[in-house]
């Protein structure tokens, strides 16, 4: 456990020790700020009585953050250590593959969550400046953050896996961007195709990240979604463990 904490702290600190970390923070804040602006604009045009959080994913900017920023956060996890050679010094200490994978994932995931932290102020900003504004309902706000965290954990695990496959950070970022966008597009397909009774359509809806986020942002916590993201995260972390253990294959 001590080793895991040491490693995670190092991972998290690594994000703040590079210029890249601050570029990510600035970029995400810009996009999230823009989404706030769009929400305000929407409220101006036609006031509605649904939870305000429901507007958040529909601005599209969250998806931009998810698809573009997560690969940049995770690309360094393994690829950087492999290219500098520190992967060798790391793996020759008495740490287990699982500890390393979990620490790298946790560090990246922690940084991801931190980039969304300022968003917690949005409901209060809206409340402060809006002339007429209903009570901020904590439920949908919490479930929106849960959604952001769960979808994020899946994309982080995906990114860690991509990074473990290569020693080039650029390749890692491109691979996780491609995989992530692919998954997003599958969801989009479910969104734009006309509703039918076919199992294919049901499957598309079931794996649609857009659909999930819609639920989360309207305050619905569906256990199927939680299981979906947690199991996918576990699968990709398992695959990452296998990749970094593969150097010991005979």
């Amino acid at each position, binding site marked *: 456990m*001590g*080793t895991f904490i*040491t*490693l995670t702290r*190092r991972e998290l600190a*690594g994000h703040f*020790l*590079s210029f890249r970390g601050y570029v990510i923070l600035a970029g995400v804040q810009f996009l999230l700020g823009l989404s706030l602006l769009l929400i305000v604009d929407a409220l101006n045009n036609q006031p509605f009585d649904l939870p305000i959080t429901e507007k958040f994913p529909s601005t599209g900017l969250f998806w931009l953050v998810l698809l573009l920023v997560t690969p940049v956060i995770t690309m360094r996890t393994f690829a950087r250590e492999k290219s*500098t*050679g*520190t992967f*060798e*010094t*790391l*793996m*020759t*200490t*008495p*740490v*287990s593959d699982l500890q390393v994978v979990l620490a790298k994932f946790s560090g990246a995931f922690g940084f991801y969550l931190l980039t969304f932290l300022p968003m917690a102020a949005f409901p209060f900003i809206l409340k402060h400046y809006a002339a007429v504004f209903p009570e901020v309902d904590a439920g949908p706000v919490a479930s929106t953050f849960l959604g952001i965290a769960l979808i994020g954990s899946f994309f982080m695990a995906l990114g860690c896996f991509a990074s473990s496959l290569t020693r080039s950070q650029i390749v890692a970022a491109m691979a996780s961007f491609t995989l992530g966008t692919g998954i997003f597009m599958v969801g989009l397909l479910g969104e734009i195709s006309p509703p039918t009774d076919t199992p294919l359509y049901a499957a598309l809806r079931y794996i649609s990240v857009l659909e999930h986020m819609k639920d989360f942002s309207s305050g619905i916590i569906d256990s199927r979604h939680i299981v979906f993201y947690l199991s996918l995260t576990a699968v990709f972390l398992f695959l990452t463990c296998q990749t970094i253990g593969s*150097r*010991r*294959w*005979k």
Partner: protein
Amino acid sequence: MADDTHDIPAPKPMIEVENLTKLYGSRPAIRDVSFTVGRGEIVGFLGPNGAGKSTTMRILAGFLAATGGTVRVAGHDVADASREVRRRVGFMPENNPLHSDMRVREYLKFRARLKGLGRQASRNRVDEVIEQFDLTDAARQMIGELSKGYRQRVGLADALVHEPAVIILDEPTIGLDPHQVRTVRQCIKQLAENHTVLISSHILPEVEVTCTKLMIFHEGRVVAADTPANLELKLGGQQRITVELEAEPDVLETAWEEMAEVEHHRITPAEGRFQRCRLTPRDGMDLRPEIAALARTRGWPLRELTRDRHTLEDIFVHLTRKDED
């Protein structure tokens, strides 16, 4: 935590390697390598690039798994008890990779914690190694801003921070200037008092002065393993003789061919009317008296007659040469 002191029977060698083989795809990196290293020995791995030194070291350090064969470090099998082995090995890989975005003390503490030292123990050990490797001035500097010599000392300090029984250093002096090389060499010599040390190098003087035993790697095999002195003796048979005589080349040619002790000869013109002959004697005989006598009877002016003194460099070149000339 495993017990560090009571599980190793005293007389057993520190490192036992048996029939170690590693294939990369179908290409063998090392083939059937066997050796043992005793406690307190400094062993030098010598060989050209790609000879299998680094691969062997990586397997010993628990980074790679072997395709075949067994490796035991301090009685623990590298394949079955990898973590036990890693606890006892301090490894500095080739090019000494370090986290350039960390400060020296911070990095060493991080490494000490990873290697299982407690909070207080790691603080104490880091202070000790900083002192030992003369890093006090650099302790608060970013590793990325350090000179190569300092970086190397940080790497050595890291390899030692958890007081391992075995220290494995892959090319510890590569890219250093002569002064830094001397410093690092000094450090390594000090280590030998309490540790078993493996170092690899392709710089001979390096290992010649520091090591108690040399292992010469060539194309994935260990082609020679002995003390530096014994290696020199063993290969004495290859000592060649250089003669410069004033005579016609064809006369010399027949003279050497008639001399049964000369296994191989080569004649090249030297300045003036002199000919330079390189003779390889059979069975390492010293032919100088015979040649001197021959020159005297034939009346050839003789201006040089020397026997090569074999240095490790020659041994190395001889053993790792692809084809005999």
